[in-house]
């Protein structure tokens, strides 16, 4: 059973990681990267690393998208 959960998590991480690279628009990439981060957190949780999973969630779901989105907003404002 736990092998199946880990396998799902690994496939999820591999697929979403590839999707992040293949997405070319930075705005969409930020969202896809969020799904990738969620997959990583799920993988850590399935490997019973609760502390690491929590750190991954707060960095991948809060800190990273926020900084990417605010930077994009600044760049677009400069272009107008």
């Amino acid at each position, binding site marked *: 059973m736990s*092998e199946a959960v*880990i396998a799902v998590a690994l496939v999820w991480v591999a697929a979403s990681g590839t999707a992040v690279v293949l997405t070319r628009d930075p705005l969409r990439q930020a969202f896809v990267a969020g799904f990738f981060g969620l997959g990583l957190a799920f993988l850590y949780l399935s*490997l019973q690393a*609760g*502390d690491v*999973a*929590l*750190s991954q*969630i*707060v*960095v991948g779901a*809060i*800190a990273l998208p*926020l*900084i990417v989105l*605010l*930077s994009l*907003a*600044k760049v677009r*404002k*400069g272009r107008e």
Partner: protein
Amino acid sequence: MSRRARLVLFTAAAAALAVTLGAGLAGLPSFGGQITSYARILNELAPRQRHVTDVVSAITFDYRGIDTLFEEFILLGAVAGISVLLRPLSDETRQLPQDKAPDRTIPPPSPAVWLLAVLLSSLLVLTGLETITHGTLTPGGGFQGGVILASAIYVVFLGTNYATVERFQPAPLLEASDGVGASGYVFIGLLGLLAGASFLSNVVGLGVTGNPISGGTIPLLNLVVGVEVAGGFVILASEFLDQTAVIRTRRR
């Protein structure tokens, strides 16, 4: 360097990397395999020696506390660096956005968004405090709880506007909390020296295993790290937010 010479250099370097990386990977324990002896020893010792139920906390804040000290200063350095980088430059000026059409009616945020922001921000504060204070018992601790606390401010911004968020983040208090959190770690470390043991020794009473206040210096360190991380992440967000909302290029 000619194209051919570069190719030769790359092939040699790539081959050397492949060999060393392959040898290193072959020496790793198998995936999901047996627990290493270090982990087994700590699993056995940490609850008895440090009276904690989350062994990871005991490792990051006690057995390997000095590593966490350096990581904390890396975060402090990063936040200070971003503050310096994102200051108003000589050709930029701080100016709150002006309403060019004050007569138009601005639709207020929908009640659903407002309600969600109120509920989520208070829940996030509660979850953040819970994560920081229960670091010795359950997964989580100062770092994770600090970021969760800071994210409550982001939710306030999403539900309201820039002016409201400004009221929640007085700059002197934020900068002070970042510095106090970072230096607090050092001061708690010095307690060990004062007690005649080594730096960062766990010299405070350990308490009863399973109680919220147990584990000696571990919950104290969690607390100061939480204060530092929460302050640092709010500073980070407000610096980036200032760039988009307040700082603009000076007209010539």
